[in-house]
């Protein structure tokens, strides 16, 4: 039981970290800071997988954890690193929603996540399921980053926050989706990041900007 | 149409002959009455006939750029009226030609005459013609509804628009004569007849002032025999309308069978009624002034309201 309790605590810690990193991404202005929040979140997610794997004696989950470390902890931040270097002083000087208001919004969204997941938490039993709201909250905050941040890099991070949130939900609810899907999904995410990176590079090369505000020509 | 007896054909011939001969006298009579009331002597009653005779002897003229419509209008005018005269139950209700004596049909026959005259006026290509035509059609357009609705008020009690049946109905039910719908319809009829035949207060048959005239403008280009036919046609129309009016509202005297005596009675009584009506109209004309042209629609709208009220009251009372 103790070991179990410890695992539960560890799980709470790692998934809490995932949510915290999402909030951090919203809080920080500098591109570097935001990317490092993302990196930490990737590790935290991998940690969650690992803890679950150990707890449930599921070796496949450990493989998943490894995959997560490789992709979300290492590969993706690396891809970002190159981008950040293109524009080292990049920071969210004038976000769409300013930082204090964003944090308030994050709190509200977290509440929404708790409200939304109540039926699931109540109707489905299982220890990690009580942590599901963390995942939903991460998704919502990630989405909010997409809405509230102007820089291309921030928006990419937002997208990945959403993805990590979903990953967390998947781990907590079903101890991960079948491996084939997990692999496919991860590959897709990686490709999306690559595509986005290409687009940002092109944007920089052709328009010389990183601000998404300049992308407002197509309208009614 | 089987079994046409001699008598009905005789009625037709008699009606046509008597009306054609009598119509100019009617105009003469009305003129004389007016003159007397105005304290003048005026021409004799037969003067109209004299004028006609003189006109018939002259050469026909036709405007340069006019067509067959100008030439045919007098003919159509007289012909349509003659058809009405021939088959309407003016002297006798016992007619086998009831297929042609429908009241609505009569209205449309008379309308054909007006329309041909209006077209002929436009055919001359002058400003006067257009003016007369335009005004005539405006008046017809507004008088027609009043007339049709008034007819409906009379036709409703007998469920038929056939003239002999309506007249027979009023003969058999003398009570109907004083009903409100009849009185209202009578009012409407009178106004419409005045308008259609160009009497005061709608039009002054004696004027030649182009800004006010209607009928004179229409026939301005006619001369000689054509003018004679137009004048004859117009007077015939007036006579027919007055005769119909008297038969519809005061039918006594009309022959119900085809005996010689009743026929004579019918002729005399109709002549008396028409003469009385004509005198009244002429007397009335002395009293009123001509309306401004733009006030005429108000008068006709009044007739229309009277006739609609007549229909309504006929329904309510029924």
């Amino acid at each position, binding site marked *: 039981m103790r070991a179990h309790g410890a695992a539960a605590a560890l799980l709470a810690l790692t998934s809490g970290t995932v949510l915290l990193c999402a909030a951090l991404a919203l809080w920080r202005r500098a591109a570097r800071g935001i990317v490092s929040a993302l990196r930490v979140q990737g590790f935290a997610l991998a940690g969650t997988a690992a803890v679950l794997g150990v707890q449930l004696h599921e070796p496949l989950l450990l493989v998943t954890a490894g995959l997560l470390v490789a992709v979300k902890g290492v590969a993706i931040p690396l891809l970002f690193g190159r981008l950040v270097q293109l524009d080292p002083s990049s920071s969210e000087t004038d976000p769409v929603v300013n930082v204090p208001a964003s944090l308030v919004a994050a709190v509200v969204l977290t509440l929404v996540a708790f409200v939304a997941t109540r039926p699931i938490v109540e109707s489905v039993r299982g220890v990690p399921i009580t942590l599901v709201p963390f995942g939903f909250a991460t998704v919502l905050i990630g989405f909010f980053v997409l809405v509230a941040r102007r820089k291309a890099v921030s928006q990419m991070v937002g997208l990945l926050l959403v993805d990590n949130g979903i990953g967390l939900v998947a781990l907590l609810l079903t101890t991960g*989706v079948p491996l084939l*899907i997990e692999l496919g999904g991860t590959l897709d995410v990686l490709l999306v990041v690559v595509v986005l990176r290409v687009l940002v590079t092109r944007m920089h090369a052709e328009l010389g900007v990183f601000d998404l505000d300049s992308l407002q020509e197509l309208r*009614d | 149409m089987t079994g046409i007896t001699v008598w009905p054909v005789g009625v037709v011939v008699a009606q046509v002959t008597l009306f054609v001969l009598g119509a100019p006298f009617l105009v003469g009579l009305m003129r004389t009455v007016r003159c007397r009331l105005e304290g003048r002597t005026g021409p004799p009653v037969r003067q109209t006939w004299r004028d006609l005779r003189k006109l018939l002897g002259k050469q026909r003229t036709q405007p340069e750029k006019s067509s067959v419509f100008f030439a045919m209008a007098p003919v159509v005018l007289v012909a349509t009226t003659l058809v009405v005269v021939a088959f309407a139950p003016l002297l006798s209700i016992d007619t086998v030609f009831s297929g042609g004596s429908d009241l609505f049909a009569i209205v449309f026959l008379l309308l054909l005459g007006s329309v041909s005259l209006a077209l002929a006026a436009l055919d001359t290509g002058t400003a006067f013609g257009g003016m007369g035509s335009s005004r005539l059609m405006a008046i017809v357009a507004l008088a027609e509804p009043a007339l049709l609705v008034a007819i409906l008020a009379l036709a409703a009690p007998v469920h038929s628009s056939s003239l002999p049946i309506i007249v027979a109905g009023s003969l058999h039910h003398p009570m109907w004569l004083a009903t409100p719908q009849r009185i209202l319809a009578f009012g409407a009829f009178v106004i419409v007849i005045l308008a259609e035949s160009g009497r005061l207060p709608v039009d002054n048959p004696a004027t030649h002032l182009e800004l006010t005239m209607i009928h004179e403008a229409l026939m301005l280009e006619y001369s000689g025999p054509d003018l004679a036919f137009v004048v004859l046609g117009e007077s015939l129309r007036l006579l027919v309308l007055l005769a119909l009016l008297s038969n519809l509202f005061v039918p006594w005297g009309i022959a119900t069978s085809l005996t010689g005596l009743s026929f004579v009675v019918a002729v005399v009584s109709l002549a008396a009624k028409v003469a009385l009506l004509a005198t009244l109209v002429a007397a009335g004309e002395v009293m009123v002034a001509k309306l401004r042209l733009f006030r005429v629609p108000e008068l006709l709208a009044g007739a229309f309201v009277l006739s609609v009220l007549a229909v309504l009251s006929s329904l309510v009372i029924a």
Partner: protein
Amino acid sequence: MVSMLIPGLPLLAVLVALVVGWRPAMPWAGVAADGAVAVIGFALALHDIHGSVPSGAGGNLRVDSLSAFMVIVIGLVSMLASWGSVRYLRYEVSTERCTPGQAQQYAVLIQLFVTTMLLAVLAANIGILWVAVEATTITTTFLVGHRRTRGALEASWKYIVLCSVGIGIAFLGTVLVYLAATHAGGHSLHALEWTWLSTHAHALNPAVMRLAMGLLVLGYGTKVGLVPMHSWLPDAHSQSPAPVSALMSGVLLSVAFYALLRFKVIAVLCLGETYPRELFVALALLSLGLASLLLLTQRDLKRALAYSSTEHMGLLALGAAAGGPLAISGVLLHILGHGLAKGVLFLASGEMVIADGSSDVDDARGLLARRPALGGAVGLGLAALLGFPPFSLFVSELTMMRGEMANHMAWAVGLSLVALAIAFAGLTTLGRRLLFGSPPGQAPSQRTPLLVMAPLVAGLGLCAAIGVFTWPFDEILRAAAKLVTS
């Protein structure tokens, strides 16, 4: 194993493109491959009516009547699009707007795109479906941006960001379905299979499924182009090369819609009629309303066509909301008819862009006088889109309406008709400016090349034929509709 063959065909065309490199004749490989897809889909569909369901790839792919029908749709529309691509690529390369390398890249990506769509409709489980749909986003992003203009870049950014988020939400929904499935006794990949889910639908946890359904509708709805997640659509459609717009509007949206159709059956079995219907009706009416209003003032043909897609997807959603066999048959026929008509119109708009440099209606007035054949095709295409017979959209819209009415959705039908009337006014006004009247300068009337006209005529002819003749789609659609009606 036949089902494995189908996605393989466009891959063959990809291989050809990779090996041969740019040649003017190279894009014909795609046309051939896509035509073959349509033919095989057709054979499968006729075969499937008689019961057997082939599957392959270790049970991950499977063809029933519905997927076979979708294969036909994808095959036919992508054949038109590939046909249009032949002209597009030759023109771009000959005017040096793009390098042979880029042309090759285009040829590769467009067939990969077709492959991913085929995978999506052939997927036997919702996981593979999700992966495939996400993959369509990736393959198309560069196609959207192929013209490398500022607008194209902007459109691709909006496209990929919005769609990735949307598809992410769909993944969240998929995870919830998986949760419900595992708790109902399913396990691993097996629990994600369509067949397993529909047979065990009643055992799924309703609370979880309710939330899952909401997320799935919103997520896949993004890809379908339903309001409020539709915003990528006008930008992407207007900036892509015409054949890509044709493909996206004609089939990509429908493929995502196919997913919704399948999910809805499970939801109905699990949750009852009401909730899924309300969800669909709400999105349908929102889409119809907003799209029709935006159509009313639209001056850009391609944007207008994009909004019209949203509008038609709204109609499909309304039909799906009703859910009876009649309505679903109508929905499916509408998918095909809309794909063909929209494909034709986008290809024609591409020709306009080539001739006039823009798809703005005011730059291309008097099209009928300047290019009678092209103008005629656009006119007929618009007539098809507006639901005039003999084009199949007439029959399908009427059938959907009958199905909806039979399911007591008179109010929704009434509202949709109001929206349709507004959209009608919008499209006709646009058509009037574009097609009729004399062109600004006294340009002589031009012939349109056969290469351009052939796919347009083929598409319109097909669209009319399936709207008039019962054979073969009557049977196919009835069989397919049976699969997605509870």
